């Protein structure tokens, strides 16, 4: 049985004490390929930031297995395109986890960079400066950097934006190859057909997790309908979410074993996923201020 690469326990992330990812529990298996889907503002990017650790959780936690190297391709890169750097310089940044601040870049490192640039179809672009690249070419260069990082856990936030169909096909092939190499991959995607065609598993978010498991089942019409019924705007007067209303009596416990769950007729066992859709704690108990436990 594959062990967990990421374990969420009541993971809650947000901004200004309003949750953007609300009480996510469950585990992502090592070597799995998961699509993260949901409407705008449903917490997909926030979840990615939470896993990388650039955003601190408001409650709960997210444990990434020991010695996991993470590669993260953000949706809105803070990349400065006017910086005087070439494609090869950008891709070489991916050597950081291996060589760090002072380690020399060896010939094999330069080979790895050259190979990565070839793999994303940017051969011949090595010496081009970043400000001469198109949006899609830059995205492919960033993909090449992820390749060079040689990470165990790869988080891609909407990597297919502004990329033409042929390149999407190439990149999807690349992602599948990563999965074959027992790397764990999570990808934020908007194209549901792409998810159904290429991703074994999916996580459907609408601030809280709606469904998580086999991609086709997760994207079943009734789940998509439920995912659509959430309010994107914050409710300034929303009651405080209290621990009691969460853990007590709502019919989900965080450590229970889903091994027995038969998902539809697929015969696909989803041992780790806790695709719980817990009822809204709304009206319940407004007296308890969130204890920020765990």
């Amino acid at each position, binding site marked *: 049985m594959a062990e967990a690469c990421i374990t969420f326990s009541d993971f809650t992330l947000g901004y200004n004490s309003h949750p953007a990812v609300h009480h996510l529990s469950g585990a992502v298996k090592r070597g799995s390929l998961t699509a993260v889907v949901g409407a705008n503002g449903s917490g997909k990017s926030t979840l990615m930031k939470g896993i990388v650790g*650039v955003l601190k959780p408001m409650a709960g936690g997210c444990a990434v297995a020991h010695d996991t190297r*993470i590669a993260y391709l953000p949706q809105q890169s*803070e990349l400065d395109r006017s*910086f*005087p*750097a070439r494609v090869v310089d950008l891709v070489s*940044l991916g050597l950081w986890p291996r060589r*760090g*601040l002072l380690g020399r870049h060896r010939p094999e490192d330069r080979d790895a960079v050259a190979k990565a640039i070839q793999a994303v179809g940017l051969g011949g672009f090595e010496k081009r400066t970043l400000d001469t690249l198109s949006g899609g070419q830059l995205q492919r260069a960033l993909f090449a950097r992820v390749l060079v990082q040689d990470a165990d856990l790869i988080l891609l936030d909407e990597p297919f934006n502004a990329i033409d169909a042929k390149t999407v096909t190439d990149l999807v092939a690349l992602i599948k190859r990563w999965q074959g190499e027992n790397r764990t991959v999570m990808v934020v995607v908007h194209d549901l057909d792409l998810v159904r065609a290429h991703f074994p598993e999916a996580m459907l978010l609408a601030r809280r997790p709606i469904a998580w498991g086999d991609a086709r089942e997760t994207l079943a019409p009734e789940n998509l309908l439920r995912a659509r019924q959430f309010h994107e705007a914050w409710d300034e007067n929303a009651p405080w979410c209290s621990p009691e209303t969460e853990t007590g009596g709502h019919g989900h416990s965080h450590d229970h074993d889903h091994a027995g769950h038969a998902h539809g007729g697929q015969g696909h066992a989803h041992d780790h996923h806790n695709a719980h859709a817990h009822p809204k704690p709304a009206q319940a108990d407004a007296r308890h201020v969130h204890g920020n436990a765990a």
Partner: protein
Amino acid sequence: MDMLYQWLIAPFAEFGFMQRALLGSLLLSVSSCPVGVFLMLRRMSLAGDAMAHAILPGAAVGFLLFGLEIVPMTIGGLIAGIVVALGAGAVSRLTVQREDASMAAFYLISLALGVLIVSLRGSSVDLMHVLFGTVLALNDEALGLIGLITAITLIGLSIFWRALVAECLDPLFLRSVSRLGSPVHFVFLALVVLNLVGGFQALGTLLSVGLMMLPAAAARFWTVRVEPMCLLAIAIGAASCVAGLLLSYHASLSSGPSIILSAGVVYAVSIVAGTRGIVATRLRPASHRTA
């Protein structure tokens, strides 16, 4: 030939104060021009200017207590510069205020404070000394200090080079692979302060930032890579120092402004004639390639 010697070599060969001025300003070029390149690439050019002002109250306190002495004024400037750099950095990282606004706030306060303190004791001549420096009066202490600062800067830059580039190019990436992001920012600010303090003996608090920024800004018009840009900035800085000192010698002009104006001339020429300057990028090329 003799004419050339008289113009270019003789002033440095004959006068000790010119030799010291040359040595000091060349060391400063080697040290502060690469720092200026990074300052520019991080879009912090005006922050450098702000920090140059921020050094003033510290230097002024040194002046108030010990008179026009190099060491106390330098130490005072260093402390004030670090307080302002850290303070402004902390305000922008911990609150919603952006770095430019917090820098402006901190430097305006320190400039007013500095001028106030200098005027408590000194005359306007002293104020001019502090504000615009005296490159022709560098003593052994000052030269030693500048040499030390140059060494620290070069070592610091070579250790943190990769992190500095990464932090400029893609800060979010650096944060995702390393915890060096914030420390590198502060190391860099410390180098900026150090170089401004080093420059202020020679060029004064207001103009020391000129030797940092102008060669860097000029070099930006000639190259598209960081390493050559730093080397070119050093070359431009050094050439400006030589030209400025000669100009001030022959035409009896004030030395600090002459150096900075020489760098300004290089900058102006670069804007027009640089390989990425106006002429090269704006004029319609005579022909273009098929692909």
